[in-house]
C-alpha cells in the first residue's frame, strides 16, 4: 500500500544538515587560512549549500506529506478533524502574514525615499512571508480540507 515513509525524508534532512555543516566548517577553514572571514561565500560553499537545500527540501516534503496524510493512505473519504486550536493558529498566521507583507511594502517605499535597504533584509522578509503562507496552507489542509483516497497502483519507488 501507498506509504508516506519517513526514513528517506529523515536522511534527506540529515544529509542537508551535513552539507550545511560542511559549508560552515569550510568557511572556518577558509577564515583560518585567510586570517579573516571573507565577505563572500566561496564557490565550494555555494555548491555545498545548494545541494544542502535540495536534500533538505526533499526531506521536508516527505515529512509534511507524512503529517498531512498519515503514514499510509487508506482508501475512502477522510473528514478533516477541524477544531478551535487550528482556527486560532490560522488567525494568528494571517495576522503575521499581513504584518510581514505590510513591512515588506514599507521597506520598499523606505528604500525608494530614504535610502537603500539591505538586500538580505528584503530577502529574509520575502522568505518569511513565503514560509508563513506555506504554514497557513499546511494547517488549513490538515484540519479543514476533506480528502478522498482512491486505490491506486504504486508507480514509484519514492514513497511520496
Amino acid at each position: 500500500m501507498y506509504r508516506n515513509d519517513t526514513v528517506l525524508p529523515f536522511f534527506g534532512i540529515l544529509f542537508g544538515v551535513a552539507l550545511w555543516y560542511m559549508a560552515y566548517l569550510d568557511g572556518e577553514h577558509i577564515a583560518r587560512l585567510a586570517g579573516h572571514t571573507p565577505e563572500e561565500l566561496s564557490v565550494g560553499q555555494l555548491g555545498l549549500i545548494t545541494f544542502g537545500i535540495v536534500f533538505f527540501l526533499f526531506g521536508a516534503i516527505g515529512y509534511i506529506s507524512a503529517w498531512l496524510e498519515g503514514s499510509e493512505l487508506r482508501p475512502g473519504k477522510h473528514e478533516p478533524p477541524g477544531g478551535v486550536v487550528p482556527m486560532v493558529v490560522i488567525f494568528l498566521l494571517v495576522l503575521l502574514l499581513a504584518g510581514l507583507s505590510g513591512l515588506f511594502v514599507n521597506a520598499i517605499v523606505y528604500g525608494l525615499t530614504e535610502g537603500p535597504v539591505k538586500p538580505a533584509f528584503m530577502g529574509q522578509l520575502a522568505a518569511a512571508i513565503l514560509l508563513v503562507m506555506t504554514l497557513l496552507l499546511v494547517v488549513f489542509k490538515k484540519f479543514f480540507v476533506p480528502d478522498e483516497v482512491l486505490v491506486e497502483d504504486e508507480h514509484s519507488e519514492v514513497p511520496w
Partner: protein
Amino acid sequence: MNQNIERIEVYLDESNEPLQVLTSPPFKVTLDSSQIPDGPHTLRVVTTFKGGQTEEEIVEFEVDNLPSPFIDGIDDGQQVRGPVEFEIVTGDYAAPLARGGLSIIGAVLSALLVLGLVWFYFAFSPSAREIVVEKGAAPAAAAHEGAVAGDAAAGKELYAAQCASCHGQNAEGAFGPALAGAAIVGNAEQFNSIVKGGTGSGMPPFAQLSDKELADLRAYLGSLGGGEAAAPAAAGEVDPALMSEGEKIYLTSCASCHQPNGAGVATFPALAGNEKLADKDLVIDRTLNGKVPMPGFGDQLSDEQVAAVATYIRNSWGNAFGPVSPADVAAKR
C-alpha cells in the same frame, strides 16, 4: 435516565423483526457492519414509553466494508485497439498499519555518524590538512624554495644529459634559445614553470625534475653568465628611456587585458615568459594590426611609441629579447 421509557427496539432497514430490544440502561447496541451488505441502510429506533406512547427515530447510513476496485490501464471513454492489458487493483481496509520509520535511537546514531564523519574529515583528514599547507604556507614554501642551494656541478651533469642536445653544449643556444646568462635563469619561478611544463611549442615538459635538480640547473646556468644583468647585453642594449616610455604606453593601452605584470588573464595571453615575443616582426605586427579579440593600435600609436611598448614587453618580467627600433616599426607599416 428517563424513568418513563418502557423499551427500545432497534430495526435495520425494512425488517419487522427488531435487531435488538433494550429494556434497561445502558441502551448500548453493537452492530456488526461486516454482516450486512455494502451500500445504504436505515436504522429505525422505536422507543415505547409507559402508557403506550411511541417515538420513532430514523438514521440513514452507508456501509463500505469492501473497497471498490480501481481499473488501472484503461480509462472511461478511451479508444482501444488490439489486445489491451489492464490491472484491477483493490485496497485492503483490514491490512495492518505498516510499521515504518526510524527509531529515535537509530535516528540519533545516524545523525551522530554522518555529522561526526564530516567533522572528522575536516579535523583529521590528511587531504584537509594539505589544503592548509598548500594555501596557508605558500609564501613560506616559496621563500624556502628560493633558498634551495643549487649545486652547479650536479647541474652541469644534468644539463649535459637533458638540455644540451637542444640548448647547446655550453648553453650558447642551438635549436633552443641560449641559456647562458639568460634573464630567465634569475627568475626561479618562471624557470621552473617552463622547464616542468614545457613551452607548448618546441620544448617538451620535464616534469620529472625535482626542485633540487632545477636549483642545480639554475646554479650551473647562472655560473655561465651574469644572470639577469647580463641579459640585455646578450640581446642588445635596451635604452632605459625607451623602456620607461614603453611602460607608460603599456599601462595605458595594454595592461587592462595583458595585466600590469604581463601574466595575462583568461583568453588574453601572458607576455611574461612568452617565447613568441622573440619574434620581433610578430610583436610589431600584433601591436599595429591586432588579432581578434585584440584591436590594432597602428592608427593610435606612432612608430616611436610602438617601438617603445614592443621594447618594454620584450624586456620586462624576465623577458630579454632585445630592443625594437622605430625603423623596424616603420618597415612593417
